[in-house]
């Protein structure tokens, strides 16, 4: 008798997820220093900035979260997760530093090396995850969306790698390929993954009405169709995401859990920035990127600061460490709120810098402080686990 999903006790060890989150927040902080210096030296480059957020922050965090979520939420076991995740992470770490930095250097070999490392890491991780995920029947929109998101990710990434090869002169440069790379990865990978997670998380964690079934269960197909249409028109894609953002805000506003929960503001801010990005899309490419980066960063940073304390509590509790510190003892909600206020300042100053250039200096400071606060919260939260697991306390 074949019984799927026997793996629910096989959630990966804490080290797997925490090492991805520590790496992404560490890289984000390191690159925020580089970008801030570049801003003050007037040598700031947009492609480096975009890839810092999409690769060093989002990709590494999302892969870490998927290593945790696939066995738990989708029932897809990943055997030997520490070894496999370790190999993914090593390549991602090297690529996640080199690739964003390469935009500051004229040397194309560094860019090619960084892109190759990221491409290899992503293909490897894709096969580790997809070999299990695609065999399982998806019962909920989250696992269904993950399947689509991973597939679109691979295609979008390949277009990106093609573009890098064209910069080096191995293949001819094609503007359409670059555009597809951007759309597939922003809307079809990051956007879809955020939406798929929210279809489940928002309803269950904040006790809201469920999303309309058509939207939640058909979002990946509708999105894929609109992505195919995008060489002709992008408006259906924009309207789909606008609808998603408005419904999410409405669901959160009407939620039954009225108590103040530190991650809810991150969802509101994320959805607000998504709406801003969609409105700005036809007007200014740079403004769209700025707002879209703030959209997913807000969601990712909020989730990261909930996942770490929960996993620390969960693993310590399972390992018999007593009394187990509560989530609020692991990352103080005041520190989460501080990171949110700094993120708000970051978003506001970045958007205002489009109108008044001097705001970019405020942004640089806010960016540094936000990334430092996040790194501190993730590191100190993770450290609680490593400190307590070695010295179980009784009584």
């Amino acid at each position, binding site marked *: *008798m074949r*019984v*799927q*999903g*026997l793996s*629910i*006790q096989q959630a990966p060890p804490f080290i797997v997820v925490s090492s991805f989150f520590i790496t992404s927040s560490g890289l984000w902080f390191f690159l925020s220093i580089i970008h801030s210096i570049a801003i003050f030296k007037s040598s700031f480059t947009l492609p480096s900035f975009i890839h810092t957020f999409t690769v060093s922050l989002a990709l590494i965090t999302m892969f870490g979260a998927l290593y945790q979520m696939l066995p*738990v*939420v*989708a*029932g897809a076991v990943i055997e030997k997760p520490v070894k496999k995740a370790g190999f993914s992470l090593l390549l991602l770490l090297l690529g996640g530093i080199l690739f964003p930095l390469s935009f500051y250097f004229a040397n194309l070999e560094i860019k090619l090396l960084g892109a190759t490392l990221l491409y290899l890491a992503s293909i490897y991780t894709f096969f580790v995850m997809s070999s299990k995920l695609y065999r399982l*029947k998806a*019962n*909920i929109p*989250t*696992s269904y969306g993950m399947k689509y998101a991973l597939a679109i990710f691979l295609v979008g990434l390949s277009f990106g790698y093609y573009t890098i090869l064209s910069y080096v002169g191995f293949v001819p440069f094609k503007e359409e390929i670059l555009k597809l790379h951007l759309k597939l990865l922003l809307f079809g990978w990051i956007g879809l993954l955020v939406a798929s997670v929210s279809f*489940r998380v928002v309803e*269950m*964690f904040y*006790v809201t009405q469920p999303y309309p079934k058509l939207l939640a269960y058909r979002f990946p197909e509708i999105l894929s169709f609109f992505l195919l249409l995008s060489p002709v028109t992008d408006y259906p894609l924009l309207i789909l995401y606008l609808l998603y953002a408005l419904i999410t805000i409405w669901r959160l506003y009407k939620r*039954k*859990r*009225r*108590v103040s*929960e530190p991650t809810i503001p991150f969802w509101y801010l994320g959805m607000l920035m998504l709406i801003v990005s969609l409105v700005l899309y036809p007007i200014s490419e740079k403004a769209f990127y700025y707002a879209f980066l703030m959209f997913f960063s807000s969601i990712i940073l909020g989730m990261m600061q*909930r996942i770490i304390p*929960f996993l620390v*509590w*969960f693993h310590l*509790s*399972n390992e018999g460490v007593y009394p187990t510190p*509560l*989530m*609020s*003892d692991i990352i103080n909600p005041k520190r989460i709120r501080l990171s949110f206020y700094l993120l708000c300042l970051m978003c506001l100053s970045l958007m205002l810098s489009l109108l008044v250039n001097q705001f970019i200096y405020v942004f640089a400071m806010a960016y540094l402080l936000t990334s430092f606060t996040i790194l501190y919260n993730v590191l100190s939260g993770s450290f609680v686990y490593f400190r307590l697991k070695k010295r179980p306390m009784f009584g």
Partner: protein
Amino acid sequence: MFDITGYLTQEHRECDEIYAQVEELVNQEKWEEAIETFKSFKDETLRHFQKEEDVLFPEFEGRTGITMGPTQVMRMEHAQARDLMERMEKALLSKDKDAFISIGETFMILIQQHNMKEEQILYPMCDQHLDAPEIIDKMEML
């Protein structure tokens, strides 16, 4: 007519709604009402756990022969949830709002990730291998 997934998922949502009311009452410091509502919440949650532990899990284990698999993990998480509910009750009785909210936050994430595993993995497996109307009848009789 519900299948096992639909029947037990509905109970999850009902418990969530009662919990949200408790949290709101605590937030407004309406302690007497909060204690009463928490009692309903705890009773409903424990009855749900009992339906699973006394009927669903043994039936599933008997049918599949798997006793150390997902059902064991679910039992362990039920024990963690029971412990947190006890702590929440103590916080309520001592009218300690911050402690209640703090324990409740951990409880809520534990219970929601637990529900996700059940709704996504375990219940569909039970629907696949068990006679749903018979199991639901047995659970209703508790």
